[in-house]
Each structure stands twice: as C-alpha cells, then as structure tokens.
C-alpha cells in the first residue's frame, strides 16, 4: 500500500501552484476574484493595524505602569472608569468597518453565486476519491479527469456527488462549492489567465480525501475548441482494452483497485477474471463478464469477502462501449 501511495505521489500530473505576486493569496486567474482580493487586502491592513495597536498598548502599559514590588504597596492612580468619548469611538469605528465589510462581502458573495446567463455549462462529478468532468461532443459526450475551459468565457459548473459530501475548490478562482449527494449545487468562474491551476476536494470525505486532486487547464483563445474536438475523437475511436485502460484512470477505478495484485479498498484487477471469489455472504462466485457488469451497475449486489461495500454505482455513467472496454481491459490483466 505504501509503495502504491508513493507511486501516486510521484505521478507527473500532481497539480502545481503557479507563482503568485501576493504573499497571502494564490495567483488570481478569474474575474470572480475581483470583489474578493481587495477586500482581503483591506482586512489584512486593518488587522495589522489593530494587532500592532493592541500589542503596543499592552507593551506600553506594562513597561510604564509596572509595579516596583509587592512590598512597595503602590496604589493605582485614580483614573476614570468611563470615558464616553473614547468608548463611543471604539464602538462606532468598528461598527462602521463591520458594516462596510458586510456589504463588500455580500457583493462578493452574490457575484460568486450568480453565473452570467450566457455561461457555458460543464458537469463535475464527485465520488470517493476522484473528480470527473463531462464534456459535450458533436456525437454524445466525453468524460475526463481534468477540467478544461476556454479563457475569457464564463463557465458554470454543475456539481453532484454519488456518495458522500465533497467540495470543489479552485483556489486561483477564489471559489468553492460543496458537492452534496442527492442534489445539484453549482459555481461559476471566468478564467482570465491561460495556464494550469490545482483543484482540491475541500470537504473531508474519508481515506484518500487528500489525494482527491485535479487541475484546471485554461486554454488560450481559440484553442479550447481544438482540444475538445481532438479529445472527443480520441475518446470515440478508442475501443476494447485501450478504452478500458483510459477509463480505469479517468473514472477513478484506480483509487480503489490496483492492477498489480495488491488489494486496496477493493480487490485488485490483476488475475481477477475467471477467478473464484468468496462473497461476503459465504457463497463462492466465479468472476465472469456478467459479474463484472453487475459490479459496475449495482456494486453492492455481490461484495467480495473482506471488503467494505463502499463502491458507488456507475449506472448511467458508463456506456455499453465503456463497459465492454473495461471488461476487455480486466481480461488482459493476467
């Protein structure tokens, strides 16, 4: 297991943080950050001022009014217990700052929650522990584990989850939304800089929560369409074990099933086809095409002994061509 995790870490597609010109915030690459970053900066300066102010006051008082010794029995000088002017100042000033911050925060929030009408739509699927993104092709659709978007066009992500809570988080776009099983949520952005930015899962979802990473590729003007066409053609033309192999990583099979014989969260696919497996209820069952198909469509129907029934269903997510491909791929793993 350790070896496998190290292998995961060493994967070249580990997203990289682009260098940022802000000390605090990651590089900003979407119009959605326009109402956020300057509020952040304002708050940092106010906070610095207040923190330093409190520190200086404390330091000043403990040096200036430090008692000599207890034996000296010094009595505190008489000073007012109230100072109306002072108290009004330190109540009203923070009040104004808070009102302003509330209004700015509200504006930023409404901005983040209101996608423009002309936004193009993409679907993000969350499952333990993989993000997949659906694209529309000329004929049918295509799924990829990387988010590809065009520059300067608003994109609305429709988010869903098949198992537990997750959250789609793109730091460089300053946006985040929970993926809630049983309902749709959404977020939007409009990328302003071509490049490659990390995507994290921000809502704790179990074992490999911290490996539920992806990245968003922002294509320069005109290149998104070219990429989409190529990717669709490639996805369409691929059949058999080759298709299965691609789906194995794209659909998140690899997060639970290895192909080297080590059991992970689910049984390894190596040598799986034709094997006699003991089911959780104690009956043996020979792994054939129908068993594999059923395991993808209704994963909890027959669970292999020693494994938790934690696999989500792929009903509606895999086409017949996809299922064929995966079965063919598993057959090659002897």
């Amino acid at each position, binding site marked *: *297991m350790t070896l496998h*995790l*190290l292998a995961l*870490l060493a994967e070249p597609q580990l997203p*990289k*943080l682009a260098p940022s010109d802000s000390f605090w915030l990651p590089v900003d690459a979407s119009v959605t950050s326009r*109402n*956020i970053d300057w509020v*952040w900066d304002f*708050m940092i300066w106010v*906070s610095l001022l*207040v*923190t330093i102010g*409190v520190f200086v006051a*404390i330091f000043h*008082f*403990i040096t200036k*009014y*430090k*008692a000599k010794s*207890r*034996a000296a029995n*010094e*009595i*505190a000088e008489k*000073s007012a*217990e109230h100072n109306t002017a*002072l108290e009004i100042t*330190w109540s009203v000033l923070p009040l104004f700052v*808070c*009102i302003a*911050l*509330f209004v700015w*925060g*509200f*504006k*930023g*929030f409404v*901005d*983040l929650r209101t996608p423009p009408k002309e936004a193009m739509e993409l679907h993000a699927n969350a499952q333990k522990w993989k993000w997949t993104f659906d694209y529309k092709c000329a004929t049918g659709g295509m799924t990829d584990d990387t988010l590809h978007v065009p520059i300067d066009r608003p994109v609305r992500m429709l988010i869903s989850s098949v198992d537990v*809570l997750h*959250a789609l*988080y793109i*730091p460089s776009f300053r*946006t*985040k939304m929970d993926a*809630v*099983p*049983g309902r749709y*949520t959404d977020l939007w952005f409009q990328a302003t800089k071509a490049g490659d930015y*990390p995507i994290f899962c*921000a809502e*704790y979802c*179990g*074992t490999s*929560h*911290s*490996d539920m990473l992806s990245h968003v590729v922002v294509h320069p003007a005109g290149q998104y369409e070219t990429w989409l066409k190529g990717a669709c053609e490639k996805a369409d033309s691929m059949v058999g074990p080759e298709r299965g192999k691609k789906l194995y990583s794209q659909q998140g099979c690899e997060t639970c099933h290895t192909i080297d014989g080590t059991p992970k969260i689910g049984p390894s696919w190596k040598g799986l086809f034709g094997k006699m497996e003991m089911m959780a209820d104690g009956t043996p069952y020979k792994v054939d095409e129908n068993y594999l198909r059923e395991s993808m469509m209704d994963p909890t129907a027959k669970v292999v002994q020693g494994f*938790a029934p*934690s696999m989500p269903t792929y009903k509606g997510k895999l086409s017949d061509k996809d299922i064929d491909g995966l079965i063919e791929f598993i057959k090659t793993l002897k």
Partner: protein
Amino acid sequence: MASPTTTADAAIPEKKGADDNYLTHDKGFASWAFTLDHKRIGVMYLASVLSAFALGGVFALLVRTELWSPGRTIMEHDTYNQMFTLHGAIMVFLVIIPGIPAALGNIILPLHLGAKDVAFPKLNLASYYLWIIGCLCMLGSLVTNAVDTGWTFYAPYSTTTQTNVIPAAMGAFILGFSSIFTGLNFIVTIHKLRPPGMTFFRMPLFVWALYSTALIQVLATPVIGITLLMMIVERVFGLGIFDPSLGGDPVLFQHFFWFYSHPAVYIMIVPAFGVVSEIIPVFSRKRLFGYQFIAISSLAIAFLGFLVWGHHMFTSGQSVLAGTIFSAITFLIAIPTAIKIFNWVSTMYKGRIHLDTPMLYALAFLWVFTIGGLTGVFLAVMGVDIHLHDTYFVVAHFHYVMMGGAITAFLGGLHYWFPKAFGKMYDEKTGRIGALIVFVGLNLTFFPQFILGSRGMPRRYYNYLPEFQGLHQLSTIGAFTLGIGFLLTAISLGRALKNGKPAPKNPWGGVTLEWTTTSPPPYYNFHTPPPVTAGPYDGYENLVYDEKIGGYVAKT
C-alpha cells in the same frame, strides 16, 4: 435533591482543628469517589480534564509529525484520519467544554459567592460521573476501530464509514448531559446562593461568564444529543434522515450540528473571558474598566451565538438570503468582542502592574485572542469565506481562539487559583518560563497555518502539495515547542503540589470573596455568608502586602 443548607448544617464538623481543610477533612478513596464537596469534585474534574488534555495533545503531536512531509511520514491515511478526529473530539468534548466551567468553575463559583456549595451537590457528582462514562465511550471507539469522521460527524460519511462511530457519538451524547447538569446547577446556584448584598451587578465577572455559559449549555446541548441519536438510528436501522440514498438530507445534519456547535464555541470561550476579567484588575491593582459592559456583553454574545450557525455553511448550498442574514448577525458579535478587548487593555492604564504567571497568561490571551477574533471577521465576510472555508485558515483561526484563547485563559486561571485550591505556591520563575514557551509555541504552530490556508491548503489533508512543506514544518516545530511548554508547566505544578511553600489566604491581593477564606478553604468554605458591600473590583487600596506571610492582609 436535598437542599444544600440542610445537608451542610447536618454535618458541620464540630471537633476538627483550626487547620482542617477540604483536602484533609476526610481520607480514603471513598471520601473522594462519593464526595459531594464542590471543591473535591472540581479537583477530580481538573485531574480528569488535564489527563484528557495530555491524550488529545499526544494525538495533536502525532498529526503534526505526520505532516512533516507530504505522503507517509509515520502513519497511513486511515490512521491519520482517526488521529485528527480523536484529537478534535477529545479537545472539544472532553477538555475545552468542561475545562473552565466544570474544573475551575466548580472549585471557585461557590467561593466567589460566599456559599457553602453549589445548589445541587449530588447532581454535581452525577455530572462528573457522566463525564467519566462519556470519556470511556470515546476511549472505547479509540481502542476498537477509532472513529474517522472528524469531530463534526458529518453525514452521510458518518452513517456509512466502517469505523466505530457509535461509541464516539454515544460518548459525545453522554458528555452533553454532563454539560447540561453542570449548567443547570450553576444557574440555580447563581440565582439562589448569592450572599447578602451581592446584587447581579456586584457579581465577579467570572460568575457572569459562567452564568452566560450555563444558559447556552442548558439550551443548546439537547440539540446535539438529538442529532447524534438520529445519526445513530440511521446507522443502526437504516432509517433515512441524513443519507440521500435512504431519502434523507445531508445538509439538515449540518444545520442541526451547528445549531449546537456554534453556541458551543461560546461555551468554550465565554468562561475564558471571565477568567481574564478576574486576573487583569487584580494584577493591575485597579478597577476593571467597563464592568457593566463586559457583564452584559457576555449575555448578549450568548444570545446572538444562537443565531449565527449558518455561517459555517456558506458553501453548503444554502440560499443566498440565509447566508446574508447569518453573516450580518455574525458581525454583530464582532463589535462587543472588540470592545471587551479594549476594556481589558484600558484597565491596565495607570494601574500598578505585577507580571506574575497568571497575568502573563492573561496578556498572552489578549494578544492571541485579538488575532483569533480579527481572523474570525475574515470568515464572516461571505465572499472571502468562500475562498477560506475548509482551509487551514479556519484551522488556524479556531486554534487561536480555542487553544490561544480558552486554553491560555484556563492555564492563567489555574495558576491564579492554584494557591487557593491547593494551599501551595508554585515556583514563580518556572511558571513564567512556561507561559513564555506556550506563547511562542502557539504562535509558531498556528500562524503559519493562516498562510497555508489563504494560499489554498485544504484542512484534514494527509497528503499535500510539496509547495506547502516549509510552512507545515514550521507549524510542527511550533507544536513540539508548545508540548515542551505544557510539560514544563505540568512538572512545575506537580512539584508545587508536593513541596510548594504554603500559600497565604490572599497571595495576589484579590478582593473577591474566595480570598477571604483560608488556602485551601475549609470544608464548608465560610462559617456564615460574608456580607458584600461593594463591587468585586473595589477596594484594592484597603489591602497591604505582608512580606512575612507573602500575601495581602486588610489595612489596619
């Protein structure tokens, strides 16, 4: 439940000597295990809470050690998830919630009121044993297949994970009742057992803080109990409440959970306000600035705390309107909190400041809590929170408030009342060094986490991008520094217990009632309720320091 006066009168010791106190009054295991004395129950709470704190601290150090490098450092994914869950659950339910009220409050509240005990001594003991049972349930989960849901128990993960969630949730459920009993007891005690002359506005602020806390404990805790029960029912019987695959709604769980857990944040921090309000005037030899404001604002914060739970859910898919209202009310809490800090700082103006260990902790609290409070404002600003939610920024923020605020104040209070509770003085120099190391350690641990979070590092991550490693390592070094500070403090207080110098009645020159009785107090605290004629911070000038006894006596 027998009324306290009758139990007390019936058993007033006649033949005990002048040096009889609650620690020597009775001997043997049973005299502690079945005691109804609030001070002994407080001491048992103190020992138990500190043990839980040590355990939670070990889990924290294991978590921080694992985060020394990305990928595996010392443990696997699943073990790490269990470690941070146990760290959170232990620190919240077993340490911080009972910490100041049940441990320090139990010892001090009746003394503050010149009373012989709390209103319901048997209920008090019951609440302690519920704590023990709750603690055993949690440990039961720990030694079998420890819970891995995070202390928040979010559904549907918590209703589907293979780990032992039920004992941990049962533990939290039972600890909730322990908390409700303490709260109920304190409310009645404060209403009914004040001495003649002590009006509400002559109560020490620690009493005000405990009162506000107790109201939240009684009103909010039942909600978490019901929520955890529903989660257990869903796990055991497959009844669909929260899991959408059974027809439930996972966001409903979050509403229920935060309806308790946000007020619970004030259960944790308001008592700390009380402790700091006691320490600062005594060590400044000056009346507290803005007493009435601090008293009332504790109540106001307790009330408003019930109306802001949705600010934990800005990214959950809740409506924009709901989010807006929750954000607006959240800002309302920021202002009284800011004013409190200004009041505490102003109290020192023209005072005569003694920098003994309790005061050092109070000053550390002021500065650290300022940072914790200000970063809370970042999170209240909705647009900015979307970026910061569920990142290390949030982790840093609540550790600045809970660890830097509540625990620092707890340690300050522990040093402040240690001579009173145990009749021994600790070594002042070691105490101060401990306070300094704790202060440095907690800033070193948690400040880098603000930067990690704002740069986009999500929380509860076992693995992380290599770019984040430097800040993670700083934080880990800080955590071990903090550990050394706590260890030193523990050794110092342990040695004081064994061979500390005997403490005088009033080592710091306080004018609240606990300082008018002996250290440690006699079994029944006061022979007759001491009459109160002035406010709790009036009359420092009537005390003089007597070098022979190392404490303050009335001016003659």
